[in-house]
């Protein structure tokens, strides 16, 4: 089983989903960087994280100086472009993902865009909530991808665009 690293944009949506704990069946461990943990303060999110840490499904990823330095360079590089840049916590996850072969869990458009235009990061595996739901369905952990995606969007108030849905067109009929 692979391990993953999650950023704030992923966690703040995913934690709202009623079957959010199923994600622990897909990954050996999900790392949360210190910079992400410090951004989260609500009771619901902190409870979810505390339980995940207690059960071993989550682990804190330390602020390693060389990853941090590369992440800051990535932030600066992305700000030179006329599209949404990547912020430090997301950049940190991308760098850690690339160096340690971790799947990056994100809903941040800047991070997803960066992996599509920066050749250095094109091999980083990035998954969004919709991709996790698909994997849960393929693993037999949820009954219907289509129904569960509907529930996910209602519970989390995350709307996937037509382009995102088109990637799974075959499975959403």
């Amino acid at each position: 089983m692979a391990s993953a690293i999650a950023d704030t944009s992923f966690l703040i949506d995913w934690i709202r989903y009623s079957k959010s704990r199923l994600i622990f069946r897909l990954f050996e461990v999900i790392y949360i960087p210190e910079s992400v943990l410090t951004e989260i303060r609500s009771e619901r999110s902190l409870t979810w994280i505390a339980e995940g840490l207690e059960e071993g499904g989550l682990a804190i990823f330390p602020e390693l100086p060389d990853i941090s330095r590369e992440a800051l360079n990535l932030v600066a590089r992305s700000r030179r472009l006329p599209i949404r840049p990547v912020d430090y916590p997301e950049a940190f996850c991308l760098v850690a993902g690339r160096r340690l072969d971790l799947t990056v869990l994100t809903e941040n458009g800047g991070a997803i865009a960066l992996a599509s235009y920066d050749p250095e990061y094109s091999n980083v595996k990035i998954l969004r909530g919709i991709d996790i739901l698909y994997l849960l369905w393929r693993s037999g952990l949820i009954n219907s991808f289509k129904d569960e995606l509907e529930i996910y969007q209602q519970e989390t108030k995350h709307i996937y665009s037509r382009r995102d849905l088109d990637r799974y067109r075959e499975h959403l009929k």
Partner: protein
Amino acid sequence: MSEKILKEWIERFKEAREIRRRYANWDFIRSQPPKIRIALEYYVETGDFRTAAKMSNMSVDEFIEIAKESANIPTVD
């Protein structure tokens, strides 16, 4: 970055902004004190929850809670 990829992303972010604008509860947003109103409006326009949270003096997840539950702004990216 190729021009094609750049155009695609500009289009994607534009589409996301349109969705946020369409779903937003503008009556709620306009009724808020200036700091929160400006932060919510900025979030609708950019999707940048982190800066919006800082503007409103809230944590990221506290801001997102208000944006989703009270201002009806979905996350779209």
